[in-house]
């Protein structure tokens, strides 16, 4: 190694270090580049398609669109959904299968969206709620159809 190479090495090394220091120095003085979102103070910007948990929308007169066909239960890869059906007697006097309880295990759910895709009547959808932590895991087992709710008219 000649002296010239030796000095050149030192110079190039120092220059490369200085380039890096200039970059971090730039960020040190330019505070507008800071990207931190202060989560509880600033509500997070969630996309509309964000998959938080499965919910069953009900309309004003407490009606849902679920016929209890169990397509979602079959589509679910990990047994997150359990549908209990009952027989309702229609005004015409016929027995008809209807939803009794839509049990949803949030603690098992991987939010893969397969149940939503499988549903023929668009009865369930994904909500954007993502703050799921609870103190008791039993609270994660949810019954999605509200008490006293019934099937919307016209949904088969």
């Amino acid at each position: 190694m000649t002296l010239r190479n030796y000095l050149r090495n030192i110079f190039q090394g120092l220059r490369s270090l200085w380039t890096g220091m200039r970059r971090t120095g730039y960020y040190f003085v330019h505070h507008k580049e800071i990207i931190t979102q202060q989560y509880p103070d600033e509500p997070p910007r969630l996309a509309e398609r964000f998959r938080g948990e499965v919910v069953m929308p009900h309309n004003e007169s407490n009606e849902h669109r679920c016929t209890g066909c169990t397509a979602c239960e079959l589509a679910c890869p990990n047994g997150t959904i359990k549908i209990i059906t009952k027989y309702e007697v229609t005004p015409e006097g016929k027995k008809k299968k209807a939803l009794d309880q839509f049990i949803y295990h949030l603690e098992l759910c991987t939010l893969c969206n397969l149940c939503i895709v499988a549903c023929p009547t668009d009865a369930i959808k994904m909500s954007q709620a993502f703050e799921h932590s609870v103190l008791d895991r039993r609270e994660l087992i949810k019954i999605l159809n509200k008490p006293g709710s019934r099937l919307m008219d016209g949904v088969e």
Partner: protein
Amino acid sequence: MLQEITSTDTGCLTINVGPQHPSTHGVLHLVITLSGETILRVDPHLGYIHRSIEKMCESLSYRQFIYVTSRMDYLSSHINNHGCALCVEQALQIEVPPRAQVIRVLMDELTRMASHVLWWGAMAMDVGAITPFFHAFRERELINEIMEETCGARLTMNYMVPGGVMFDLHPNFQKRVKDFIPFFKSKLDEYDELLTHNIIFKQRTQHIGVLSREDAISYGVTGPTARASGWACDVRKRVPYECYDRLRFEEVVEQAGDCYARYLVRMGEMRQSLSLVEQLIDNIPQGDFQAKTKAVLKLPKGEFYSRVETARGEFGVYIVSEGGTTPYRIKFRSPGFSNLSALDHMARGHKIGDLVAIMGSLDLVIPDIDR
């Protein structure tokens, strides 16, 4: 106390690196034998995060099993899902609509960038620079937001389904990606300033963990790790799938085979992915995003194999079907496993610090290795 520290006669020191260790990126357990600081032997011990994904898949239908594969190499979950969807499509001979193909390739390349960006930060962290990690996450966050908007999830998207993709692109997708491209280009130059040309980083990575082309082939190393050893093995070029054969991109190949070469290959791939996205973003064809498929998929009796290029290398899906709705046997060929197997060969004779740099340059994702 002396006897406890130095293990008897040979004067060697045996150390457990992991399963909890800052630089094993998860629960990898390495038993390393040292003489002073020099590594004599590295023994990777696996199994800490084994979830028997292959066995789980045997009880899931062909629509369901795809979501599990997101949990293997979670940094390129799109590409894993893609490989599985391809295999099912190949078995059922489903023609994927052109729009779905382009969407898939776009998502694959965005995933590749997100994965490489995270790797860049983690690599810097491994060699001791902490700041790049945070800068890397800034860019990764943008890609994640694009993903979130279209797919609904940030890490385990489950967006690929047999026959296409689950939903159409979000209306904002094109605009956001177009905003992202120039931003990311400028940040890639910053990456060069912070790390690529840094003398300390070069010293830490050049001539470290050299893997020759022959060794790379014999260990079955794929992906950027193999391409850094001069083995052109990009599945996107060699066995093009979807619309890769109609796209212009270069396979980044380096000859040196050391950590720095692997670093350069990944940096080059980020630029190539960016150019792929640039080519496609204005040319998304109209049409269906999903082919019409039956509600219940039944694969014909036989064996099917498909492969894709993930951010880590070649990911293979091998399905044995008996004609039912669930696979008889599924085998995943994960790139990380083969790449890890070369670690002992690469690390011998180097120092502990080099081992960390080599592991960083291999871009290990432990759930991918362990499945």
